[in-house]
Protein backbone atom coordinates (compact mmCIF):
# COMPACT_ATOMS: atom_id res chain seq x y z
CA UNK A 1 0.00 0.00 0.00
CA UNK A 2 3.05 2.25 0.22
CA UNK A 3 2.55 3.38 -3.33
CA UNK A 4 -1.12 4.22 -2.79
CA UNK A 5 -0.58 6.13 0.43
CA UNK A 6 2.12 8.10 -1.36
CA UNK A 7 -0.36 8.91 -4.12
CA UNK A 8 -2.63 10.41 -1.51
CA UNK A 9 -0.09 12.23 0.66
CA UNK A 10 2.15 13.71 -2.04
CA UNK A 11 -0.51 16.09 -3.41
CA UNK A 12 -1.03 17.41 0.12
CA UNK A 13 2.53 18.71 0.10
CA UNK A 14 5.04 18.75 -2.72
CA UNK A 15 2.73 18.29 -5.68
CA UNK A 16 -0.19 20.27 -4.35
CA UNK A 17 -2.52 21.16 -7.22
CA UNK A 18 -3.12 24.74 -6.04
CA UNK A 19 0.15 25.87 -4.53
CA UNK A 20 2.61 24.02 -6.75
CA UNK A 21 0.77 23.30 -9.99
CA UNK A 22 -1.33 26.48 -9.61
CA UNK A 23 -4.46 24.80 -10.95
CA UNK A 24 -8.01 25.36 -9.72
CA UNK A 25 -7.27 28.78 -8.28
CA UNK A 26 -10.46 30.36 -9.66
CA UNK A 27 -12.83 28.29 -7.54
CA UNK A 28 -10.48 28.69 -4.60
CA UNK A 29 -11.13 32.44 -4.71
CA UNK A 30 -14.86 32.04 -5.12
CA UNK A 31 -15.93 29.56 -2.46
CA UNK A 32 -13.61 30.26 0.46
CA UNK A 33 -15.36 33.17 2.16
CA UNK A 34 -16.87 30.66 4.63
CA UNK A 35 -15.71 27.28 5.93
CA UNK A 36 -18.86 25.30 5.20
CA UNK A 37 -19.11 25.86 1.45
CA UNK A 38 -15.35 25.39 1.19
CA UNK A 39 -15.51 21.95 2.79
CA UNK A 40 -18.51 20.89 0.71
CA UNK A 41 -16.74 22.11 -2.41
CA UNK A 42 -13.59 20.22 -1.44
CA UNK A 43 -15.55 16.97 -0.99
CA UNK A 44 -17.40 17.47 -4.29
CA UNK A 45 -14.17 18.06 -6.21
CA UNK A 46 -12.53 15.05 -4.54
CA UNK A 47 -15.44 12.82 -5.57
CA UNK A 48 -15.37 14.13 -9.13
CA UNK A 49 -11.59 13.84 -9.59
CA UNK A 50 -11.49 10.37 -8.03
CA UNK A 51 -14.30 8.85 -10.09
CA UNK A 52 -13.50 10.64 -13.33
CA UNK A 53 -9.91 9.44 -12.98
CA UNK A 54 -11.17 5.91 -12.38
CA UNK A 55 -13.59 5.89 -15.32
CA UNK A 56 -11.22 7.52 -17.79
CA UNK A 57 -8.44 5.18 -16.73
CA UNK A 58 -10.72 2.21 -17.40
CA UNK A 59 -11.57 3.62 -20.81
CA UNK A 60 -8.11 4.91 -21.62
CA UNK A 61 -7.16 2.25 -24.16
CA UNK A 62 -10.41 2.66 -26.05
CA UNK A 63 -10.48 6.46 -26.31
CA UNK A 64 -9.31 7.77 -29.70
CA UNK A 65 -6.58 10.33 -28.97
CA UNK A 66 -8.10 13.02 -31.19
CA UNK A 67 -11.43 13.20 -29.36
CA UNK A 68 -10.20 12.41 -25.85
CA UNK A 69 -11.04 15.84 -24.43
CA UNK A 70 -14.68 15.45 -25.48
CA UNK A 71 -14.89 11.99 -23.93
CA UNK A 72 -13.32 13.29 -20.71
CA UNK A 73 -15.74 16.21 -20.62
CA UNK A 74 -18.75 13.91 -21.00
CA UNK A 75 -17.60 11.78 -18.06
CA UNK A 76 -16.79 14.78 -15.88
CA UNK A 77 -20.05 16.51 -16.72
CA UNK A 78 -22.07 13.42 -15.83
CA UNK A 79 -20.31 13.14 -12.47
CA UNK A 80 -20.74 16.84 -11.74
CA UNK A 81 -24.48 16.63 -12.43
CA UNK A 82 -24.69 13.70 -10.02
CA UNK A 83 -22.85 15.66 -7.33
CA UNK A 84 -24.98 18.73 -7.95
CA UNK A 85 -28.24 16.77 -7.64
CA UNK A 86 -26.92 15.09 -4.50
CA UNK A 87 -26.08 18.42 -2.88
CA UNK A 88 -29.46 19.86 -3.83
CA UNK A 89 -31.17 16.89 -2.25
CA UNK A 90 -29.25 16.73 1.03
CA UNK A 91 -27.55 20.09 1.78
CA UNK A 92 -29.78 22.51 -0.06
CA UNK A 93 -28.62 25.67 1.74
CA UNK A 94 -24.94 25.07 0.98
CA UNK A 95 -25.84 24.13 -2.57
CA UNK A 96 -27.52 27.52 -2.93
CA UNK A 97 -24.45 29.29 -1.53
CA UNK A 98 -22.17 27.49 -3.93
CA UNK A 99 -24.58 28.30 -6.79
CA UNK A 100 -22.83 27.96 -10.14
CA UNK A 101 -19.52 26.86 -8.70
CA UNK A 102 -20.61 23.23 -8.37
CA UNK A 103 -21.52 23.23 -12.04
CA UNK A 104 -18.21 24.88 -12.79
CA UNK A 105 -16.31 21.90 -11.39
CA UNK A 106 -16.55 20.70 -15.01
CA UNK A 107 -14.11 23.41 -15.94
CA UNK A 108 -11.92 22.99 -12.84
CA UNK A 109 -8.41 22.74 -14.17
CA UNK A 110 -7.44 20.11 -11.60
CA UNK A 111 -9.97 17.58 -12.92
CA UNK A 112 -8.89 17.97 -16.51
CA UNK A 113 -5.22 18.22 -15.51
CA UNK A 114 -5.27 14.92 -13.62
CA UNK A 115 -7.15 13.16 -16.40
CA UNK A 116 -4.64 14.29 -19.01
CA UNK A 117 -1.53 13.95 -16.89
CA UNK A 118 -2.30 10.81 -14.93
CA UNK A 119 -5.43 8.81 -15.72
CA UNK A 120 -4.71 8.53 -19.44
CA UNK A 121 -1.47 6.70 -18.73
CA UNK A 122 -2.00 4.81 -15.45
CA UNK A 123 -3.98 1.88 -14.16
CA UNK A 124 -7.50 2.40 -12.72
CA UNK A 125 -6.77 1.83 -9.00
CA UNK A 126 -3.74 4.11 -9.01
CA UNK A 127 -5.68 6.75 -10.91
CA UNK A 128 -8.49 6.54 -8.38
CA UNK A 129 -6.09 7.19 -5.51
CA UNK A 130 -4.38 9.95 -7.44
CA UNK A 131 -7.79 11.60 -7.87
CA UNK A 132 -8.52 11.34 -4.15
CA UNK A 133 -5.08 12.71 -3.28
CA UNK A 134 -5.40 15.70 -5.58
CA UNK A 135 -8.93 16.40 -4.42
CA UNK A 136 -7.70 16.38 -0.83
CA UNK A 137 -4.72 18.58 -1.72
CA UNK A 138 -7.13 21.06 -3.25
CA UNK A 139 -9.40 20.74 -0.23
CA UNK A 140 -6.56 21.34 2.22
CA UNK A 141 -5.73 24.71 0.69
CA UNK A 142 -9.43 25.57 0.48
CA UNK A 143 -9.89 24.88 4.17
CA UNK A 144 -6.77 26.85 5.17
CA UNK A 145 -7.84 29.85 3.12
CA UNK A 146 -11.46 29.63 4.28
CA UNK A 147 -10.34 29.33 7.92
CA UNK A 148 -8.51 32.67 7.81
CA UNK A 149 -11.10 34.38 5.66
CA UNK A 150 -14.03 33.39 7.85
CA UNK A 151 -12.21 34.01 11.12
CA UNK A 152 -10.90 37.46 10.19
CA UNK A 153 -13.64 38.47 7.79
CA UNK A 154 -16.75 37.34 9.66
CA UNK A 155 -15.39 36.63 13.13
CA UNK A 156 -16.84 33.12 13.05
CA UNK A 157 -15.94 29.54 12.12
CA UNK A 158 -18.38 27.13 10.49
CA UNK A 159 -21.03 29.76 11.14
CA UNK A 160 -20.45 29.95 14.91
CA UNK A 161 -19.22 33.30 16.27
CA UNK A 162 -15.67 32.88 17.58
CA UNK A 163 -14.50 36.41 18.25
CA UNK A 164 -15.83 37.36 21.71
CA UNK A 165 -18.31 40.22 22.07
CA UNK A 166 -15.85 42.02 24.34
CA UNK A 167 -13.48 42.44 21.38
CA UNK A 168 -16.12 44.24 19.38
CA UNK A 169 -16.96 46.37 22.38
CA UNK A 170 -13.28 47.33 22.61
CA UNK A 171 -13.31 48.57 19.03
CA UNK A 172 -12.37 45.47 17.04
CA UNK A 173 -13.90 45.29 13.56
CA UNK A 174 -14.19 42.46 11.08
CA UNK A 175 -11.96 42.90 8.08
CA UNK A 176 -14.24 43.35 5.07
CA UNK A 177 -11.37 42.92 2.64
CA UNK A 178 -11.17 39.29 3.76
CA UNK A 179 -14.62 38.67 2.32
CA UNK A 180 -13.53 39.99 -1.08
CA UNK A 181 -11.80 37.59 -3.51
CA UNK A 182 -8.47 39.51 -3.76
CA UNK A 183 -7.66 38.56 -0.19
CA UNK A 184 -8.11 34.86 -1.03
CA UNK A 185 -5.49 35.29 -3.72
CA UNK A 186 -3.15 36.98 -1.24
CA UNK A 187 -3.65 34.20 1.33
CA UNK A 188 -2.95 31.55 -1.32
CA UNK A 189 0.16 33.56 -2.18
CA UNK A 190 1.28 33.55 1.45
CA UNK A 191 0.70 29.78 1.67
CA UNK A 192 2.84 29.32 -1.44
CA UNK A 193 5.49 31.60 0.06
CA UNK A 194 5.63 29.57 3.30
CA UNK A 195 5.64 26.27 1.43
CA UNK A 196 8.44 27.29 -0.89
CA UNK A 197 10.63 28.58 1.89
CA UNK A 198 10.13 25.29 3.78
CA UNK A 199 10.85 23.15 0.70
CA UNK A 200 13.79 24.76 -1.13
CA UNK A 201 13.60 22.04 -3.82
CA UNK A 202 10.39 23.69 -5.06
CA UNK A 203 12.23 26.90 -5.87
CA UNK A 204 13.37 27.45 -9.43
CA UNK A 205 17.09 27.52 -10.09
CA UNK A 206 18.32 31.02 -10.64
Amino acid at each position, binding site marked *: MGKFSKLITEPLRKTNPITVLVLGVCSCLAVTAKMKPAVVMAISVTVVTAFSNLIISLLRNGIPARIRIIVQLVVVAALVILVDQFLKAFVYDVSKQLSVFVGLIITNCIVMGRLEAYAMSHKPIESFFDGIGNGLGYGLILVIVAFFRELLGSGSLWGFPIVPKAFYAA*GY*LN*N*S*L*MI*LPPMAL*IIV*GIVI*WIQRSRHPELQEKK
Partner: protein
Amino acid sequence: MQKNKTKFRRSLRDFFIVTDETSDGKLRSHITGLRRYIDKIKPNFMEGGRFSKLQSTFEAFESFLFVPDETTKCGVQIRDAVDMKRTMFFVVIALIPTLLFGIWNVGYQHVLSCGDTLNFWNIIGFGLLTTLPTIVVSYVVGLAIEFAFAQIRHHQVNEGFLVTGLLIPLVLPPDIPLWMVAIATAFAVIIGKEVFGGTGMNIVNPALLARAFLFFSYPSVMSGTSVWIADKPDAFSGATPLALLENGVSAMPSAWTMFWGGIPGSLGETSKIAILLGAILLLVCGIASLRIMASICIGGIAMGLVFNLIGGSTAMQVPFYYHLLMGGFAFGAVFMATDPVTAPQTDRGKIIYGLLIGIFAVMIRVVNPAYAEGMMLAILLMNVFSPLIDHCVIAKNIRMRKKRAINHQKATAK
Protein backbone atom coordinates in the same frame (compact mmCIF):
# COMPACT_ATOMS: atom_id res chain seq x y z
CA MET B 1 34.81 62.55 45.10
CA GLN B 2 35.78 65.66 43.18
CA LYS B 3 38.77 63.83 41.80
CA ASN B 4 36.64 60.96 40.62
CA LYS B 5 34.33 63.35 38.85
CA THR B 6 37.18 65.00 36.98
CA LYS B 7 38.57 61.64 36.06
CA PHE B 8 35.22 60.55 34.73
CA ARG B 9 34.88 63.73 32.73
CA ARG B 10 38.29 63.30 31.27
CA SER B 11 37.63 59.74 30.25
CA LEU B 12 34.37 60.84 28.69
CA ARG B 13 36.20 63.53 26.76
CA ASP B 14 38.82 61.07 25.66
CA PHE B 15 36.06 58.86 24.45
CA PHE B 16 34.54 61.43 22.16
CA ILE B 17 37.38 63.78 21.31
CA VAL B 18 40.80 62.65 20.30
CA THR B 19 43.72 65.03 19.97
CA ASP B 20 46.29 64.10 17.37
CA GLU B 21 49.54 65.67 16.41
CA THR B 22 49.49 66.33 12.68
CA SER B 23 52.55 66.13 10.47
CA ASP B 24 53.32 69.87 10.78
CA GLY B 25 53.41 69.65 14.55
CA LYS B 26 50.00 71.22 15.31
CA LEU B 27 47.50 69.65 17.65
CA ARG B 28 44.13 68.80 16.15
CA SER B 29 41.10 67.51 17.99
CA HIS B 30 38.35 65.59 16.32
CA ILE B 31 35.45 63.42 17.25
CA THR B 32 36.72 59.95 16.71
CA GLY B 33 35.86 58.29 19.99
CA LEU B 34 32.53 57.15 18.67
CA ARG B 35 34.16 56.11 15.42
CA ARG B 36 36.78 54.18 17.37
CA TYR B 37 34.16 52.55 19.52
CA ILE B 38 32.24 51.46 16.43
CA ASP B 39 35.39 50.10 14.85
CA LYS B 40 36.09 48.22 18.05
CA ILE B 41 32.73 46.49 18.20
CA LYS B 42 32.51 46.02 14.42
CA PRO B 43 34.19 42.58 14.24
CA ASN B 44 31.46 41.18 16.48
CA PHE B 45 28.90 41.93 13.81
CA MET B 46 30.88 40.79 10.79
CA GLU B 47 30.87 37.30 9.29
CA GLY B 48 31.83 34.83 12.00
CA GLY B 49 31.42 37.32 14.84
CA ARG B 50 29.28 36.79 17.89
CA PHE B 51 26.40 38.92 16.64
CA SER B 52 26.85 38.25 12.93
CA LYS B 53 23.09 37.75 12.68
CA LEU B 54 22.60 41.44 13.44
CA GLN B 55 24.95 42.60 10.69
CA SER B 56 22.28 44.53 8.75
CA THR B 57 21.08 46.34 11.86
CA PHE B 58 24.64 47.27 12.74
CA GLU B 59 25.34 48.55 9.24
CA ALA B 60 22.14 50.59 9.26
CA PHE B 61 23.12 52.37 12.46
CA GLU B 62 26.73 52.80 11.36
CA SER B 63 25.76 54.44 8.08
CA PHE B 64 23.22 56.52 9.98
CA LEU B 65 25.99 57.94 12.16
CA PHE B 66 28.86 58.12 9.66
CA VAL B 67 29.04 58.48 5.92
CA PRO B 68 30.40 55.16 4.66
CA ASP B 69 34.02 55.48 3.53
CA GLU B 70 33.88 52.57 1.12
CA THR B 71 34.61 53.29 -2.51
CA THR B 72 33.71 51.24 -5.53
CA LYS B 73 36.45 48.87 -6.59
CA CYS B 74 35.52 48.70 -10.25
CA GLY B 75 33.03 50.13 -12.71
CA VAL B 76 31.42 53.45 -11.99
CA GLN B 77 33.82 55.80 -10.24
CA ILE B 78 31.79 58.99 -10.22
CA ARG B 79 28.58 58.87 -8.27
CA ASP B 80 25.83 61.37 -7.66
CA ALA B 81 26.11 63.07 -4.31
CA VAL B 82 22.37 62.69 -3.94
CA ASP B 83 22.08 59.06 -2.91
CA MET B 84 18.98 57.32 -1.66
CA LYS B 85 19.40 58.58 1.89
CA ARG B 86 19.48 62.20 0.70
CA THR B 87 16.59 61.71 -1.73
CA MET B 88 14.41 60.23 0.96
CA PHE B 89 15.33 62.98 3.38
CA PHE B 90 14.38 65.69 0.90
CA VAL B 91 10.97 64.09 0.54
CA VAL B 92 10.58 63.97 4.32
CA ILE B 93 11.51 67.67 4.51
CA ALA B 94 9.02 68.44 1.74
CA LEU B 95 6.35 66.66 3.77
CA ILE B 96 6.96 68.73 6.89
CA PRO B 97 4.74 71.72 5.90
CA THR B 98 1.79 69.40 5.28
CA LEU B 99 2.48 67.56 8.52
CA LEU B 100 2.66 70.75 10.59
CA PHE B 101 -0.46 72.13 8.97
CA GLY B 102 -2.14 68.76 9.44
CA ILE B 103 -1.39 68.76 13.16
CA TRP B 104 -2.78 72.26 13.48
CA ASN B 105 -5.84 71.44 11.39
CA VAL B 106 -6.71 68.31 13.41
CA GLY B 107 -6.82 70.47 16.51
CA TYR B 108 -8.59 73.31 14.72
CA GLN B 109 -11.36 71.09 13.36
CA HIS B 110 -11.85 69.50 16.77
CA VAL B 111 -12.02 72.81 18.61
CA LEU B 112 -14.30 74.25 15.94
CA SER B 113 -16.70 71.31 16.14
CA CYS B 114 -16.84 71.40 19.95
CA GLY B 115 -17.28 75.15 20.05
CA ASP B 116 -14.27 75.66 22.35
CA THR B 117 -12.25 78.85 22.30
CA LEU B 118 -9.83 78.96 19.43
CA ASN B 119 -6.71 79.06 21.57
CA PHE B 120 -3.52 78.27 19.62
CA TRP B 121 -2.10 75.96 22.30
CA ASN B 122 -5.42 74.18 22.67
CA ILE B 123 -5.36 73.45 19.00
CA ILE B 124 -1.73 72.37 18.69
CA GLY B 125 -1.88 70.30 21.88
CA PHE B 126 -4.89 68.33 20.73
CA GLY B 127 -3.43 67.95 17.25
CA LEU B 128 -0.14 66.59 18.57
CA LEU B 129 -1.83 64.18 20.95
CA THR B 130 -4.00 62.82 18.16
CA THR B 131 -1.46 62.54 15.38
CA LEU B 132 1.84 61.64 17.06
CA PRO B 133 0.76 58.13 18.16
CA THR B 134 -0.27 57.31 14.59
CA ILE B 135 3.12 58.43 13.25
CA VAL B 136 5.00 56.52 15.94
CA VAL B 137 3.04 53.32 15.32
CA SER B 138 3.55 53.55 11.58
CA TYR B 139 7.31 54.02 11.93
CA VAL B 140 7.82 51.41 14.64
CA VAL B 141 5.86 48.67 12.89
CA GLY B 142 7.26 49.42 9.45
CA LEU B 143 10.88 49.75 10.55
CA ALA B 144 10.68 46.60 12.68
CA ILE B 145 9.52 44.63 9.65
CA GLU B 146 12.13 46.25 7.38
CA PHE B 147 14.94 45.43 9.81
CA ALA B 148 13.70 41.88 10.30
CA PHE B 149 13.57 41.22 6.55
CA ALA B 150 16.95 42.82 5.96
CA GLN B 151 18.37 40.59 8.67
CA ILE B 152 16.86 37.38 7.32
CA ARG B 153 17.92 38.12 3.76
CA HIS B 154 21.34 39.57 4.69
CA HIS B 155 20.48 42.77 2.86
CA GLN B 156 21.30 46.28 3.92
CA VAL B 157 18.50 48.17 5.57
CA ASN B 158 17.14 50.67 3.04
CA GLU B 159 15.98 54.20 3.72
CA GLY B 160 12.79 53.81 1.70
CA PHE B 161 10.57 53.43 4.71
CA LEU B 162 11.50 56.86 6.09
CA VAL B 163 9.12 58.39 3.55
CA THR B 164 6.49 55.63 3.55
CA GLY B 165 6.30 55.72 7.33
CA LEU B 166 5.40 59.40 7.25
CA LEU B 167 3.12 59.16 4.22
CA ILE B 168 0.92 56.52 5.83
CA PRO B 169 -0.31 58.72 8.72
CA LEU B 170 -0.67 61.67 6.35
CA VAL B 171 -3.23 59.88 4.18
CA LEU B 172 -5.32 58.49 7.04
CA PRO B 173 -8.16 60.08 8.99
CA PRO B 174 -6.91 61.76 12.19
CA ASP B 175 -8.30 59.46 14.87
CA ILE B 176 -7.96 56.12 13.16
CA PRO B 177 -7.48 53.29 15.71
CA LEU B 178 -3.80 52.53 16.20
CA TRP B 179 -4.14 48.78 15.74
CA MET B 180 -5.52 49.41 12.27
CA VAL B 181 -2.52 51.58 11.44
CA ALA B 182 -0.26 48.76 12.62
CA ILE B 183 -2.06 46.12 10.53
CA ALA B 184 -2.17 48.30 7.44
CA THR B 185 1.52 49.22 7.73
CA ALA B 186 2.47 45.58 8.18
CA PHE B 187 0.35 44.58 5.19
CA ALA B 188 1.77 47.32 3.00
CA VAL B 189 5.38 46.59 3.90
CA ILE B 190 5.14 42.80 3.68
CA ILE B 191 2.69 42.24 0.81
CA GLY B 192 3.37 45.49 -1.01
CA LYS B 193 7.14 45.63 -0.78
CA GLU B 194 9.08 42.79 0.82
CA VAL B 195 7.33 40.09 -1.21
CA PHE B 196 8.68 41.69 -4.37
CA GLY B 197 12.20 42.03 -2.98
CA GLY B 198 12.21 45.19 -0.85
CA THR B 199 12.77 48.87 -1.55
CA GLY B 200 12.84 49.68 -5.23
CA MET B 201 11.17 46.46 -6.33
CA ASN B 202 7.58 47.21 -5.36
CA ILE B 203 4.85 47.45 -8.00
CA VAL B 204 2.45 49.73 -6.15
CA ASN B 205 3.12 52.58 -3.74
CA PRO B 206 3.24 51.04 -0.24
CA ALA B 207 1.72 54.04 1.53
CA LEU B 208 -1.25 54.07 -0.83
CA LEU B 209 -1.57 50.33 -0.48
CA ALA B 210 -1.87 50.78 3.28
CA ARG B 211 -4.65 53.28 2.72
CA ALA B 212 -6.42 51.08 0.17
CA PHE B 213 -6.17 48.14 2.56
CA LEU B 214 -7.88 50.13 5.30
CA PHE B 215 -10.39 51.61 2.86
CA PHE B 216 -11.63 48.19 1.78
CA SER B 217 -11.13 46.45 5.14
CA TYR B 218 -12.74 48.91 7.50
CA PRO B 219 -14.97 51.21 5.42
CA SER B 220 -16.70 52.49 8.54
CA VAL B 221 -13.55 54.23 9.80
CA MET B 222 -12.28 55.31 6.39
CA SER B 223 -15.29 56.87 4.71
CA GLY B 224 -18.51 58.65 5.52
CA THR B 225 -18.93 61.89 7.36
CA SER B 226 -18.03 61.07 10.97
CA VAL B 227 -14.37 60.06 10.76
CA TRP B 228 -12.61 63.14 9.44
CA ILE B 229 -12.70 65.21 12.64
CA ALA B 230 -11.12 63.73 15.75
CA ASP B 231 -13.51 63.43 18.76
CA LYS B 232 -16.34 65.20 17.02
CA PRO B 233 -19.73 65.79 18.68
CA ASP B 234 -22.44 63.85 16.78
CA ALA B 235 -24.44 66.91 15.89
CA PHE B 236 -21.61 68.54 13.95
CA SER B 237 -21.43 67.65 10.27
CA GLY B 238 -17.95 66.45 9.44
CA ALA B 239 -18.39 65.83 5.75
CA THR B 240 -15.37 66.39 3.54
CA PRO B 241 -15.77 68.39 0.32
CA LEU B 242 -15.57 65.11 -1.58
CA ALA B 243 -18.51 63.68 0.32
CA LEU B 244 -20.49 66.80 -0.55
CA LEU B 245 -19.62 66.48 -4.23
CA GLU B 246 -22.92 64.76 -4.97
CA ASN B 247 -24.88 67.68 -3.53
CA GLY B 248 -23.25 70.12 -5.91
CA VAL B 249 -21.11 73.19 -5.53
CA SER B 250 -23.54 75.11 -3.30
CA ALA B 251 -23.07 72.60 -0.46
CA MET B 252 -19.27 72.73 -0.60
CA PRO B 253 -16.81 75.06 1.12
CA SER B 254 -15.46 77.91 -0.99
CA ALA B 255 -12.49 77.30 -3.26
CA TRP B 256 -10.35 79.58 -1.08
CA THR B 257 -11.13 77.58 2.08
CA MET B 258 -10.24 74.36 0.30
CA PHE B 259 -7.04 75.97 -0.93
CA TRP B 260 -5.71 77.11 2.43
CA GLY B 261 -7.03 73.99 4.06
CA GLY B 262 -9.35 74.63 7.01
CA ILE B 263 -11.53 71.67 6.05
CA PRO B 264 -12.05 68.19 7.50
CA GLY B 265 -10.00 65.49 5.81
CA SER B 266 -7.02 63.18 6.08
CA LEU B 267 -4.08 64.53 8.06
CA GLY B 268 -1.91 65.79 5.21
CA GLU B 269 -4.28 66.43 2.36
CA THR B 270 -6.23 69.50 3.45
CA SER B 271 -3.91 72.43 2.81
CA LYS B 272 -2.98 72.95 -0.82
CA ILE B 273 -0.61 75.77 0.23
CA ALA B 274 1.47 73.38 2.33
CA ILE B 275 1.43 70.81 -0.46
CA LEU B 276 2.56 73.47 -2.95
CA LEU B 277 5.48 74.37 -0.69
CA GLY B 278 6.51 70.72 -0.65
CA ALA B 279 6.05 70.46 -4.40
CA ILE B 280 8.29 73.49 -4.99
CA LEU B 281 11.04 71.99 -2.81
CA LEU B 282 10.82 68.64 -4.60
CA LEU B 283 10.93 70.32 -8.02
CA VAL B 284 13.78 72.69 -7.15
CA CYS B 285 15.85 69.80 -5.83
CA GLY B 286 15.03 67.76 -8.91
CA ILE B 287 13.60 64.85 -6.93
CA ALA B 288 10.03 64.66 -8.19
CA SER B 289 9.05 64.82 -11.83
CA LEU B 290 7.37 67.99 -13.06
CA ARG B 291 6.04 66.03 -16.04
CA ILE B 292 4.00 63.76 -13.80
CA MET B 293 2.62 66.52 -11.58
CA ALA B 294 1.71 68.77 -14.51
CA SER B 295 0.14 66.05 -16.60
CA ILE B 296 -1.98 64.86 -13.67
CA CYS B 297 -3.33 68.38 -13.26
CA ILE B 298 -3.97 68.67 -16.99
CA GLY B 299 -5.71 65.29 -17.05
CA GLY B 300 -7.88 66.23 -14.08
CA ILE B 301 -8.78 69.62 -15.53
CA ALA B 302 -9.59 68.08 -18.93
CA MET B 303 -11.87 65.46 -17.42
CA GLY B 304 -13.47 68.11 -15.19
CA LEU B 305 -14.16 70.27 -18.26
CA VAL B 306 -15.69 67.30 -20.10
CA PHE B 307 -18.02 66.67 -17.17
CA ASN B 308 -18.85 70.40 -17.02
CA LEU B 309 -19.83 70.23 -20.69
CA ILE B 310 -22.01 67.15 -20.15
CA GLY B 311 -23.47 68.60 -16.96
CA GLY B 312 -25.78 65.63 -16.39
CA SER B 313 -25.86 65.70 -12.59
CA THR B 314 -25.01 68.14 -9.81
CA ALA B 315 -21.70 66.35 -9.30
CA MET B 316 -20.83 66.89 -12.97
CA GLN B 317 -21.61 70.60 -12.73
CA VAL B 318 -18.98 71.25 -10.05
CA PRO B 319 -16.38 73.61 -11.63
CA PHE B 320 -13.33 71.78 -12.98
CA TYR B 321 -10.80 73.60 -10.78
CA TYR B 322 -12.59 72.32 -7.66
CA HIS B 323 -11.27 68.86 -8.44
CA LEU B 324 -7.70 70.04 -7.98
CA LEU B 325 -8.60 71.41 -4.55
CA MET B 326 -10.77 68.59 -3.23
CA GLY B 327 -9.62 65.51 -1.35
CA GLY B 328 -6.28 63.93 -2.02
CA PHE B 329 -5.84 65.09 -5.62
CA ALA B 330 -3.04 67.55 -4.90
CA PHE B 331 -1.37 65.39 -2.26
CA GLY B 332 -1.49 62.34 -4.50
CA ALA B 333 -0.18 64.24 -7.51
CA VAL B 334 2.79 65.67 -5.61
CA PHE B 335 3.83 62.94 -3.19
CA MET B 336 2.27 59.67 -4.31
CA ALA B 337 2.24 59.56 -8.10
CA THR B 338 5.79 60.90 -8.37
CA ASP B 339 7.29 57.99 -6.43
CA PRO B 340 10.20 57.09 -8.75
CA VAL B 341 9.86 53.36 -8.12
CA THR B 342 6.26 52.96 -9.18
CA ALA B 343 6.06 55.65 -11.88
CA PRO B 344 7.24 55.05 -15.46
CA GLN B 345 10.87 55.88 -16.22
CA THR B 346 10.50 57.25 -19.75
CA ASP B 347 9.58 60.89 -20.31
CA ARG B 348 6.71 60.16 -22.64
CA GLY B 349 5.56 57.38 -20.31
CA LYS B 350 5.38 59.84 -17.43
CA ILE B 351 3.06 62.10 -19.39
CA ILE B 352 0.72 59.27 -20.36
CA TYR B 353 0.76 58.00 -16.78
CA GLY B 354 0.00 61.43 -15.35
CA LEU B 355 -2.78 62.23 -17.79
CA LEU B 356 -4.51 58.92 -17.13
CA ILE B 357 -4.25 59.37 -13.34
CA GLY B 358 -5.89 62.78 -13.60
CA ILE B 359 -8.63 61.51 -15.89
CA PHE B 360 -9.40 58.40 -13.84
CA ALA B 361 -9.33 60.24 -10.51
CA VAL B 362 -11.95 62.77 -11.57
CA MET B 363 -13.98 60.12 -13.39
CA ILE B 364 -14.16 57.84 -10.34
CA ARG B 365 -15.10 60.74 -8.07
CA VAL B 366 -17.90 62.01 -10.24
CA VAL B 367 -19.34 58.78 -11.62
CA ASN B 368 -19.03 56.57 -8.53
CA PRO B 369 -19.80 58.44 -5.31
CA ALA B 370 -19.27 55.25 -3.28
CA TYR B 371 -15.53 55.49 -3.94
CA ALA B 372 -15.08 59.09 -2.99
CA GLU B 373 -11.29 58.99 -3.00
CA GLY B 374 -10.77 58.34 -6.69
CA MET B 375 -7.20 59.63 -6.54
CA MET B 376 -5.99 56.67 -4.49
CA LEU B 377 -7.59 54.14 -6.82
CA ALA B 378 -6.41 55.96 -9.95
CA ILE B 379 -2.78 56.06 -8.78
CA LEU B 380 -2.80 52.41 -7.71
CA LEU B 381 -4.28 51.39 -11.06
CA MET B 382 -1.70 53.35 -13.03
CA ASN B 383 1.11 52.04 -10.78
CA VAL B 384 0.19 48.59 -12.02
CA PHE B 385 0.23 49.75 -15.63
CA SER B 386 3.42 51.82 -15.52
CA PRO B 387 5.77 48.99 -16.60
CA LEU B 388 3.48 48.38 -19.56
CA ILE B 389 3.50 52.08 -20.47
CA ASP B 390 7.30 52.08 -20.35
CA HIS B 391 7.43 48.96 -22.47
CA CYS B 392 5.17 50.48 -25.13
CA VAL B 393 7.07 53.77 -25.21
CA ILE B 394 10.40 51.99 -25.63
CA ALA B 395 9.03 49.56 -28.24
CA LYS B 396 7.62 52.46 -30.21
CA ASN B 397 10.95 54.25 -30.09
CA ILE B 398 12.76 51.15 -31.32
CA ARG B 399 10.30 50.77 -34.21
CA MET B 400 10.66 54.42 -35.13
CA ARG B 401 14.45 54.29 -35.20
CA LYS B 402 14.45 51.06 -37.14
CA LYS B 403 12.18 52.61 -39.73
CA ARG B 404 14.41 55.65 -39.93
CA ALA B 405 17.49 53.49 -40.40
CA ILE B 406 15.82 51.49 -43.16
CA ASN B 407 14.68 54.67 -44.90
CA HIS B 408 18.16 56.08 -44.61
CA GLN B 409 19.62 52.90 -46.08
CA LYS B 410 17.20 53.05 -48.99
CA ALA B 411 18.01 56.69 -49.61
CA THR B 412 21.75 56.07 -49.67
CA ALA B 413 21.36 52.97 -51.85
CA LYS B 414 19.77 55.06 -54.55
